[in-house]
């Protein structure tokens, strides 16, 4: 972490960047917030640890409108989002000084709490320099431990790889965290009967409160004004009066980001109701991979997106009923 701070100070001092986009220490051991730092003095609050899970690429949309360069710390998976935004002209490469930060997997406090750990006072083992095996947690109710792996976000278990796709420099080491199949959960659902599928998604989506956290945290959902907020389709319903609205919202959201979603997992991370929203996006990714050839959004900035592309021999929509 000190290395990041030192580098930030250097670049601020020599005028390379006008500000630094990173994280500020929170008031609890696990809630650092994304923040801008404009001076060495401000950097005293800078923190970078396992709880810094937010995808800062999203913030670069706004940062691109500011004067001067913004130094930003991006995890490997964040760089896919940055690339994708670059491709869509939503961020300005010249306004970003990207430090690719190594990643050993990011933590999900909800997963810690799900293990019955509450009254958390401090957490040891979450720093990026730690060797990432065990978290030791001091609570009001005594000391608890939790393995790092068990506390990791879902996305880290199916990590795309620890390679930064775009950066100006790299700092810190990464550790492979992939220990599960990316599409296993999608396949599990695909194998269900229509009734089971319906019941599964009804149960999950019934929790949706239409808070729009998934949309607003999503780097692919970068619309200035979402269709669900505008009257262009007569679709600006805010509430969950009927279960259909959640389906409409989540299907269309997934469709709008199909071929653009980098599978960064922010939607699921931020959902207050713990809905595995990534399963929608990942379904499209799987379909695209299978039907139109493997495609990883954000892997580059010049490939043709699957939904703006075609071949004469493309699968017919009837393939949906035919696949096993």
């Amino acid at each position, binding site marked *: 972490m000190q290395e990041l701070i030192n580098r930030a100070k250097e670049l601020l001092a020599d005028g390379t960047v006008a500000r630094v986009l990173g994280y500020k220490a929170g008031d609890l051991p696990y809630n650092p917030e994304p923040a801008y730092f404009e001076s060495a003095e401000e950097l005293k609050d800078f923190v970078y640890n396992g709880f810094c899970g937010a995808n800062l690429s999203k913030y670069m949309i706004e940062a691109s409108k500011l004067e001067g360069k913004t130094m930003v710390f991006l995890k490997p998976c964040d760089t896919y989002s940055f690339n994708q935004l670059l491709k869509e002209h939503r961020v300005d490469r010249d306004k970003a000084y990207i430090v690719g930060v190594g990643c050993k997997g990011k933590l999900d406090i909800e997963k810690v709490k799900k293990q019955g750990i509450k009254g958390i006072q401090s957490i040891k083992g979450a720093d990026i320099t730690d060797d990432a095996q065990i978290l030791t947690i001091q609570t009001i109710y005594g000391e608890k431990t939790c393995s790092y792996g068990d506390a990791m976000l879902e996305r880290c278990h199916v990590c795309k790889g620890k390679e930064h796709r775009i950066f100006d420099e790299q700092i810190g080491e990464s550790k492979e965290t992939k220990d599960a199949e990316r599409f296993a959960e999608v396949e599990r659902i695909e194998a269900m009967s229509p009734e089971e599928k319906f019941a599964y998604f009804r149960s999950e989506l019934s929790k949706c409160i239409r808070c729009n956290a998934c949309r607003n945290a999503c780097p692919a959902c970068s619309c200035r004004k979402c269709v669900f907020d505008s009257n262009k389709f007569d679709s600006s319903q805010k509430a969950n009066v009927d279960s259909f609205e959640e*389906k409409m919202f989540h299907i269309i959201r997934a469709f709008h980001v199909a071929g653009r979603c980098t599978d960064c997992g922010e939607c699921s991370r931020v959902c207050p109701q713990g809905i595995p929203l990534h399963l929608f996006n990942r379904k499209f990714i799987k379909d695209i991979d299978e039907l139109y050839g493997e495609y990883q959004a954000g892997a580059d900035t010049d490939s043709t997106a699957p939904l703006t592309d075609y071949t004469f021999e493309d699968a017919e929509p009837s393939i949906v009923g035919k696949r096993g």
Partner: protein
Amino acid sequence: MSLENKEFKPKIVAFCCNWCSYAGADLAGSSRLTYPADVKIIRVPCSCRVNPMFILRAFEKGADGVIMCGCHPGDCHYSTGNYYARRRMTLLFSMLDYIGVENGRTRVEWVSAAEGVKFSETMNSFVEKIYSLGENVRLGDLRCKS
């Protein structure tokens, strides 16, 4: 055709592209090739004009089946429109299948301006399928059911 369920009159929306399928439907009409009156056609310039929102909207408002027809791949009046439509609809239908909507409530058929017979046959078989699936309960908005 199995029409056992006399009570159930499905609502079926058919999006037809202006250049091929709408003309194919016209040909079916002038050839007096019948298909059930449950099918109502909406004319769009090209199958690529069909937004997934339209299809979900139809289901929301109480449609029991939605079919989209366009020019055969390679014959699009706008060269490439139906290629895009094909990918979009494939993904959309796959998603609907994934969330447990009965397969068969949605369909895409390529019908040329010369295929009046195909148009009528397609509509007959699609309507039959919708009858066999029954009322759409998984995608509709309850407020539209009364």
